Each structure stands twice: as structure tokens, then as C-alpha cells.
């Protein structure tokens, strides 16, 4: 990785840092530089820069309409920013389609859940591994050699994820019949199945009750711990985020108003104002 790409004003060292609970955080995995996104004349994101480090749980928070989801959509390629650069694994990323971004090792979930409702839980999670399957179309059509072996291998990996997220009992159930909380978990499973370098979670706890939120928090921490997956998540429930994340970006009206550890952010006056609703002039 090219260390010169790290901005000078970054308070963290280029090599990474150690969290209070003793986890090692690595170098910069993804960096957003001066991102501006407009829809017609409306600015959804204005000149935002931040980075995501290897092994970190990075949160983007902010009140409704702050542009958090837009930012996630920029990272995952669903939106293309008018200005700014996206750097991933030390390289500047050219404009890409969402499926190309996914193939680079960035998996995501959606705020409103985008699962394949008519397919079983198992099949849904298997689609997460599509990018990792190597056999060609003819081999697949004829079910030649590699295709079959590959299918078995990937099935094993998927079963592990199913065990890990404790959804064995619904493996064969069509997703459309599942309750909301479980759908969220299946979506997480599908994203995990891709063995992503970077996992993006769009409001993983939205619409959940307290118990489901605790479960989801535990899974997110376990995923990060067990697989070392880098996670960037959006949430507007402050309490949950502060417990989960290593560093937090705070957005309001499309601008970055804070960036740092949960404690730093909590004591930032601009952040307090945004959340308590101080009038913008």
C-alpha cells in the first residue's frame, strides 16, 4: 500500500492502531476523498473525506436525511459522485457498476432489505458466493467436473455461515415467509458468504426490537472478531453505534461534522447540536 496516499491530517498513524480492548487495526483499506454527490441541483453529500481501516468497525451516523445512505451507495457503486475520488486497497477506483464493486470484495446489505423473496434461505446465501465460483458457463450447463465439486465446496462454506448466524432451522424456508428480524440476518449471511474485504451494513438494526438489536450487535462483533472482516455501518441509533464501533463519522445535511472515536464524537459540540436539533441558520 502506498503510504503517501494517507492524508496528512489523519490523527491515526499510517500503520494502524490498537483499540482500547486490544484489537489490532491495520492500514487504510478504503478512503473517500472530497466526495460530492448531487441529484440535479440538490447536494446530498458535500465534500466529505474519511477513511476505513483494515479490521475496523467504522460507523457513519447522523440524523435522518444526513446523506448516510447516499454515502454507502457511493461506496458500493450504486451512485457515482460528481466530484471526489474513491480509493480502495491503495488504488484509485475508476467509476464502476455495482456488480463490479461487489466483485472487488465489497458486500452490502440494504436498509429496506433486498433479498430474493421467492428463493430459499440457502439459495439466497449461495448467491452471495456467485463471485467466488470459477467454473465457466459450458461446464455449468453440462455439470462437468469442476462445476459439481465447486458447488459442494461452496455449500460447505455456506453451511458454516448458517451455523454461525444461528439460522439452521430456516435453511429451506422461502425468504418471503420469514419475519423481519430473520430477514435482516439472512441478508447479513448472504453478504458474509462473499467473504468480503469490506462489509457495508445499511441500518442493520432499523425496525428491530431490543432483543433483536442485541442479537444483531453480537453478530456484528463476532463477524469482525472471528473473520477479521472490516465493517462500515450506518445507524441512527446513537447508543448502539457507540458500543459497537471503533471510529465514527458524523454527517449532517450532507456535510461531515465529526470524525473520531465514540468518546471524541460524543463530546463534539457540533454533533451534540445536530442531534439535539439546534437551529441551522
Amino acid at each position, binding site marked *: 500500500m502506498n503510504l503517501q496516499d494517507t492524508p496528512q491530517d489523519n490523527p491515526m498513524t499510517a500503520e494502524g492502531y490498537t483499540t482500547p480492548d486490544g484489537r489490532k487495526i491495520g492500514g487504510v483499506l478504503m478512503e473517500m476523498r472530497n466526495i460530492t454527490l448531487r441529484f440535479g441541483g440538490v447536494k446530498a453529500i458535500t465534500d466529505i473525506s474519511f477513511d476505513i481501516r483494515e479490521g475496523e468497525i467504522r460507523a457513519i451516523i447522523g440524523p435522518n436525511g444526513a446523506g448516510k445512505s447516499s454515502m454507502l451507495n457511493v461506496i458500493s457503486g450504486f451512485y457515482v459522485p460528481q466530484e471526489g475520488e474513491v480509493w480502495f486497497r491503495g488504488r484509485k477506483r475508476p467509476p464502476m457498476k455495482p456488480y463490479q464493486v461487489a466483485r472487488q470484495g465489497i*458486500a452490502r446489505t*440494504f436498509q429496506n432489505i433486498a433479498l*430474493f423473496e*421467492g428463493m430459499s434461505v440457502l439459495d439466497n446465501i449461495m*448467491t452471495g458466493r*456467485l463471485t467466488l465460483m470459477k467454473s465457466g458457463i459450458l461446464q455449468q450447463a453440462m*455439470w462437468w467436473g469442476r462445476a459439481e465439486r*465447486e*458447488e459442494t465446496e461452496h455449500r460447505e462454506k455456506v453451511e458454516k455461515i448458517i451455523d454461525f448466524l444461528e439460522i439452521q432451522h430456516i435453511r429451506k424456508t422461502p425468504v418471503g415467509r420469514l419475519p423481519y428480524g430473520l430477514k435482516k440476518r439472512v441478508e447479513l449471511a448472504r453478504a458474509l458468504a462473499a467473504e468480503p474485504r469490506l462489509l457495508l451494513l445499511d441500518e442493520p438494526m432499523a425496525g428491530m426490537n431490543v432483543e433483536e438489536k442485541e442479537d444483531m450487535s453480537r453478530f456484528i462483533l463476532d463477524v469482525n472478531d472471528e473473520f477479521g472482516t472490516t465493517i462500515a455501518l450506518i445507524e441512527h441509533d446513537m447508543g448502539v453505534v457507540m458500543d459497537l464501533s471503533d471510529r465514527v463519522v458524523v454527517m449532517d445535511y450532507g456535510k461531515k461534522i465529526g470524525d473520531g472515536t465514540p468518546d471524541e464524537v460524543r463530546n463534539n459540540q457540533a454533533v451534540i447540536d445536530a442531534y439535539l436539533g439546534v437551529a441551522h441558520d
Partner: protein
Amino acid sequence: MPDTFFYALEVSLNGLMAGVMYSLVALGFVLIFKASGIFNYAQGVLALFAALTLVGLQNGQVPFAHLINAVFGTSIHGFGWQLPGIIAILLTALVMVGLAILIERYILKHLVNQEPIILFMATIGLAYFLEGLGDVMWGADIKKLDVGLPQGISDAIESTTYEWFGYGFFIDRLDMVAAVVAALLVASLTLFSQYTKYGRALRAVADDHQAALSVGISLRFIWVLVWSIAGFVALVAGIMWGSKSGVQFSLSLIALKALPVLMLGGFTSIPGAIVGGLIIGMGEKLFEFFIGPLVGGATENWFAYVLALLFLVFRPQGLFGEKIIERV
């Protein structure tokens, strides 16, 4: 009296066989509709185009021969070869894949996120374009298609059934081949869509575009894939219909018979396309047999459409289709 019974049985068997032919065309419609929500008006013409290309390649016809001769004053007609059926079929399958790539590149790509009605209109345009292209490329005359499939009444069945029941069944051998081919086609399509990565990707795209993108599926590749498969199904339908009644323009009109089949079976169900075809095929033959004489015959022309109309009123999603509930 048993003779009437056997005759009715024979009629319904023949109806089932004819129904398989309808099913083959309906299958192509369902594949594209399921994957992309496009009602592909060109499916029938696709079958005609495939059959024309097959005959042309097999007989070593030079494509655009008339046009070339008219412009350059030459008089070329053929390469002078005769390809074995199987080679010609494989080559035609490749042509259909090429066609799918062109359709994606020059039509679908530009119509992403458009209303279904726009895409439907585009397929109407495509249908007329392909019809004309087929004419210019291979000539408009009626052609005989023979890829070595058995033809005519099966003597074996006739004599065996005569021995057993005292009544000889007339079953066309080509119809039997068509039934076997259709069964194989459906079985392999089902296996492909259930157990391979591309099949899974296909179902994923049919279910949710956004989610499909997020797991790394290229929609453009899937369109090419699904149109290639539809082209292949059209080729199979073209071979069967072409062997039966010659390759001619009216082949593209069998698509109209596939419409009631779809209404019956449902637009989104592969088994529905098969069962719908069988019901229509058998229904129209039996109706003609029992009711036809009472109303002056020729009921086969309208029976299927009336049946479809009844379905539209009482069960609009068809026998196997997904119930469409619009949330407001």
C-alpha cells in the same frame, strides 16, 4: 361402441402431442418474462428465424443471395454443401447466441429501467425486423426441413394396439419425438436453474435487480444468457414445427396459439407452460370431436381463445402463475 371410445382416446392423445408443440413456444415466452418481465412478442419470429437459418445452413444456401445477385449482377445461390443435421443445429444455436448478444447490445441496453410497455413495443419492432431479415437472408419460399427426425405414422404402435385392443392407434412419430424433446428440455432447464450458479443468478435477477447487483451479478450478461436460452428454445420449437409443416412465414403465427397457453398456465411458470399447452392441445381436439359437429366445426380456431378468456375472468394469474398483488 368401444371404437368410439378408442377413437376419442386417440383424438385426445393426438391433442396432447399437438399441445406439446404449443408448449415449446410458450416456454420461450415464460423464460424471458420470468427473468426480465418483458413480454417477448418476437418469440414466434425467433422460432421462424431459427428454422430458416437451420435450413439455410444445412443446404449450404448463401445468406443474402438474392440481394447480392441483384446488386452485383452475380448469380450465386449455394455453397454446394449439405451439412449433417446435428452440425447444422449446433451452428444455428451459435447464431442464436450471436443474435442474443446483438439484441442486448442494440436494444435492451438502451431501454434499461423503461416501462414494460416500452420493452414490449421494442419486441414488436424486433419481430418485424427479424421477419424481414429472415426473408432477405434466406428467401421467402416455403422450405422443407429434414434433420433426420422420424416422420409419419408409427406402424409399430398401430399394429401393437390393434392386436391388444382391436383398434389401431394412429400416432405421428414426430409428435412422439417432440414430446420426448420437450420433456428433456424442461428437465434440463429446471436442473440448470436449480443447481448451477448461472441458474441461481438467473433466478436472483428475476427476483430482485438491486439485490442481484449487490452480489456481483452483471445484468447485461444475464440478459444475453436468458435471450440465448430463449433463442435455443425457439430453435427447438422451430425444428419441430418446421419438420411437421415446412418452414414458412406462418410459423411465426404459432406464437398466437402460445398466448392462450400462457393465460392458462401463467406467465411465470415453466410447468405451467407445459400443462397449459397440453390442456389446450387436448381440449381443442376433444371439443372439436364432441361439440364441433353440433356447431358446424372449425372450433379449433377459437376454442383456445375462449378458454383463455374464461381464465382471464376467473383466474387471471393462470393455473400456476404467481398471484400478483399490487400494494398501494
